């Protein structure tokens, strides 16, 4: 298929394709981070993860409408405010959900799956009733649109760069929180031995609640960022859920490094196959490969071998 193109053209395309792979990687990672915290650290299956993302997207849309209508001067920076608000709103909803629902179900992971599925249905209908069944369009500030021309052919998408930067920052923040902060220590302590952690004075309920809240908050940020590249509608959250879970599970739930590696592997595989094959087939092959590997390595790519 490449016979008719010059070497220069091919090189440029491969550079851009590599960049496309990186964007996909960032997107996958951003989707999966919140879930990796919730599922990996707490063992909770949050089927409403996509709906928390969409909540962030709706918050962003509301900000966009508000700033364009009332504070046009601040439009160039509204996106940052929107992301912070998205984090807070989704996080707050997460904390409430944990308090009302999840905390009673820690011993029954499969049941949390069903309960959060119910939650996702309720949230979808809520969005439909409040924001209407149609998709809403988020108007981005001018500087986030378009691309930077590097050569004649190679162009780097600004929103792609933005997503990559955001993903990097959030990943580092999560890593620092998990492995350097007191809170992270407490979370890991609770994960490993709930009773003991309680006994040494850790408020396990509070740790659970905020862990869940932070996971949901990150989902909100992801949703906010995805308004740049995807759609915002009541059912848009469902588009992400299978991919997200596969990334987390494939990475071997418990480790951040695993999630990163898995997002990287899946995104590269998909992006490369999409280039050489048709979109549909690429998707099927990627999913099949992930499922196949999970069957061979049920604990995911990265997991510590321990005495059971």
């Amino acid at each position, binding site marked *: 298929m490449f016979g008719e193109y010059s070497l220069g053209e091919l090189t440029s395309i491969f550079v851009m394709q590599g960049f496309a792979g990186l964007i996909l990687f960032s997107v996958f990672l951003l989707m999966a981070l919140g879930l990796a915290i919730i599922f990996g650290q707490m063992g909770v299956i949050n089927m409403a993860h996509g709906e928390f993302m969409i909540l962030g997207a709706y918050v962003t849309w509301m900000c966009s409408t508000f700033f364009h209508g009332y504070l046009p001067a601040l439009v160039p920076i509204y996106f940052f405010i929107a992301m912070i608000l998205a984090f807070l709103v989704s996080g707050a909803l997460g904390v409430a959900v944990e308090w009302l629902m999840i905390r009673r179900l820690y011993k029954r992971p499969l049941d949390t799956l069903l309960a959060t599925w119910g939650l996702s249905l309720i949230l979808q209908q809520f969005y439909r009733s409040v924001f209407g069944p149609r998709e809403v369009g988020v108007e981005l500030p001018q500087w986030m649109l378009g691309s930077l021309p590097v050569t004649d052919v190679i162009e780097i998408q600004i929103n792609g760069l933005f997503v990559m930067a955001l993903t990097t920052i959030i990943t580092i923040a999560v890593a620092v929180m998990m492995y350097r902060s007191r809170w992270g220590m407490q979370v890991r302590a609770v994960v490993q031995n709930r009773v003991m952690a309680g006994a040494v004075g850790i408020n396990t309920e509070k740790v659970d609640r905020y862990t869940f809240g932070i996971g949901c908050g990150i989902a909100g940020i992801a949703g906010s960022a995805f308004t740049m590249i995807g759609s915002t509608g009541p059912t848009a959250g469902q588009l992400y859920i299978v991919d997200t879970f596969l990334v987390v599970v494939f990475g071997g739930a418990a480790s951040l490094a695993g999630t990163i590696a898995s997002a990287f592997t899946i995104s590269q595989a998909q992006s490369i196959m999409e280039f050489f094959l048709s979109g549909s087939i690429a998707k099927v092959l990627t999913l099949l490969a992930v499922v196949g590997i999970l069957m061979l390595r049920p604990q995911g790519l990265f997991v*510590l*071998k*321990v*005495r*059971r």
Partner: protein
Amino acid sequence: MIIPPNDPQKQFVLAVEALTVSFDGFKAVNDVSFYVDENEIRVIIGPNGAGKTTVLDLICGRTRATSGSIKFRDMDLTKMSESNIVLAGVGRKFQNPSIYDDLTVFENLEISFPRGRSVFGALTFRRDAEVRRRVEEIAETIFLADHLDERAEFLSHGQKQWLEIGMLLIQDPDLMMLDEPVAGMSVSERKKTAELLHKIIKNRSVIVIEHDMKFVEDIAHRVTVLHQGKVLSEGSMDRVKHDPRVIEVYLGH
């Protein structure tokens, strides 16, 4: 300090040789060898984290060895599935009582009865006179004859331990492995358990992990002391008790 087989031709029930398992570089069991005779009661002692339970896990196939061999009669257990190891005649009781809470005592024992253990065997399994007789006989032995209809969930801790022993017993294994059978029991329950063990160890080899030294002394033919994944000492209780290294790491404090 490992006692090598005096006679290389001698047939042991269990021969563990150079057994090693490492978890991400950490050697939980390191080059362990020991041999169990017919009808021998072997007790494994050692401080927490010495690798005692891991050794049992390795024998019954729950954990796979990194290297080394485990021979049960003529079979190499390291290559067999858990269920085949059981079918070969190795039974194992877990540290925490591992019974089926939702089933009655009768059903608990019945499930362990060595018949109809394939899928279609289980579908066509009949609760005939022989099953009933065996179950009732075992229940009598483990002091639960009056509790056959009770859901296992409602048994006391000690009774649960006995039930699990009963579940092993009904399989009639050649090699029985008990992980802390008296842990968490009251004094009177302990006594009864000792009595029970004495009754059931006839005609089979037994490996016991135990912390209670009085109890160990009471039943052990030979004792193996593990420390940090290695065999520290082996021999009669008397001899082990006086081994200075053992005193230092274990009995001393």
